[in-house]
């Protein structure tokens, strides 16, 4: 299996690659994991991952700067149905619009806006930073065999903005921080996690393995 992690100048690509390699090894999957911005390599991939650390507008600008990238994503993910995972800002880029600093158009693959977290308790700190548990809203293959709920495993979050999805059917899991916060979105062959699976130890490696096995 060929996995393409898109390198568009954002984020902790090295750790994402290593986590995917570890996860594939531990679950006995043969996968070659490449960091690439080459549209041809992305076109040939069996799994596409869009990581992201940084500001929404900066990441979006990084994506559009690579000639042919948006086109190949549309072709592979939307037309061909290649399984896709966005991580953190990479997940937020799936939205219609990002409202961080100023309004920026997203890929608009999953309807909704990325907006500032506004916890109901003003004493709560922003960013929502650290380990939190997941509450399932819809069963999904990406969460197979992962203990969730208050006594479940933890995922690592670092973000000040979150994806407010328009269609509740796209909402797979939330976490709780002064109110519900979107943790996982999915629609057809497209999925995204607000948390960093590559930094979430046990939960993260299991989540990545589920993505590699996913047959949407």
């Amino acid at each position, binding site marked *: 299996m060929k996995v393409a992690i898109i390198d568009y100048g954002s*984020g*902790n*690509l*090295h*750790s994402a690659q*290593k*986590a995917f390699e*570890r996860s594939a090894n531990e679950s006995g999957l043969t996968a070659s994991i490449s960091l690439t911005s080459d549209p041809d390599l992305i076109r040939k991939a069996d799994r596409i991952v869009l990581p992201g*650390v*940084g*500001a929404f507008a*900066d990441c979006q600008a990084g994506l559009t700067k690579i000639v042919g990238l948006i086109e190949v994503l549309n072709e592979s993910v939307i037309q061909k149905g290649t399984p896709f995972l966005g991580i953190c*800002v990479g997940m937020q880029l799936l939205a219609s619009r990002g409202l961080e*600093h100023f309004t920026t158009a997203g890929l608009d693959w999953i309807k909704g806006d990325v907006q500032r977290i506004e916890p109901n308790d003003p004493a709560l*700190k*922003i*960013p*929502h*930073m*650290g*380990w*939190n*548990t997941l509450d399932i809203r819809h069963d999904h293959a990406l969460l197979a065999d992962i203990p969730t709920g*208050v006594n479940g*495993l*933890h995922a*690592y979050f*670092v*973000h*000040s903005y979150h994806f407010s999805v328009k269609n509740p059917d796209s909402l797979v899991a939330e976490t*709780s*921080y002064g109110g519900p916060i979107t943790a996982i979105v999915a629609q057809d062959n497209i999925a995204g996690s607000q948390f*960093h699976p*590559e*930094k*979430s*130890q*046990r939960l*993260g*490696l299991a989540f990545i393995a589920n993505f590699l096995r996913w047959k949407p």
Partner: protein
Amino acid sequence: MLKARVIPCLDVKDGRVVKGVQFVNLVDAGDPVEAAIAYDAAGADELCFLDITASHEDRGILLDVVRRTAEACFMPLTVGGGVRTVEDIRALLLAGADKVSIMTAAVQDRDFVRRAAEKFGTQCIVVAVDAKKVSVEGEPDRWEVFTHGGRRATGIDACAYARDVAVLGAGEILLTSMDRDGTKIGYDIALTRAIADSVSVPVIASGGVGTLEHLVAGIKEGHASAVLAASIFHFGEFTIGEAKAKMRDAGLPMRIET
């Protein structure tokens, strides 16, 4: 529910772990990557590397340590020390750091915090504040920002500074009491609470941990979101597991997965 974090900090010099008592008398405490792997397995919530290599030219050694750590540990890693430019931040993030801690460069040019946050997002910009009490007996408590390992006063009020950098884009404040660092008598709780209550971003308490009760106090009384310690963990006085169990027993929400 979001959990309180326990963060072991490794002072790294020329690619090796050291821990100074009040930033002098350094002793070698081993290989940072080995230590990182051990902390990862022990359930540390994050790791922090503080590079105290004197020369900026030796940066490659640190990047290599970060790279090897990120290959082996699937947990968040903050790296600080000598970060002066947007290029420094990019290099660390590309090597595998998740957050970058800025200190002197932010004191000298606060707008650097804004530029860094706009480029990489507030979530990966940590501003390290080294603070020392400057008020005398009988005066209301007041702390100032110090640089150069606590040797150089800046005349800047620590609370006002923390508020400023948080507004400019710091996603987190790493607060070290220079009076307490290396003393093992506990965090400066009054300082920690003054800063934590001044800013809307998470504060990591640092400097002075000697017992597990100190960790509890940092969160409960100091209102910190995370506690950082070095020597109590490095020299095996306490394990991460013991620390988290103690904090849980004190009623704090902890991530305990074994």
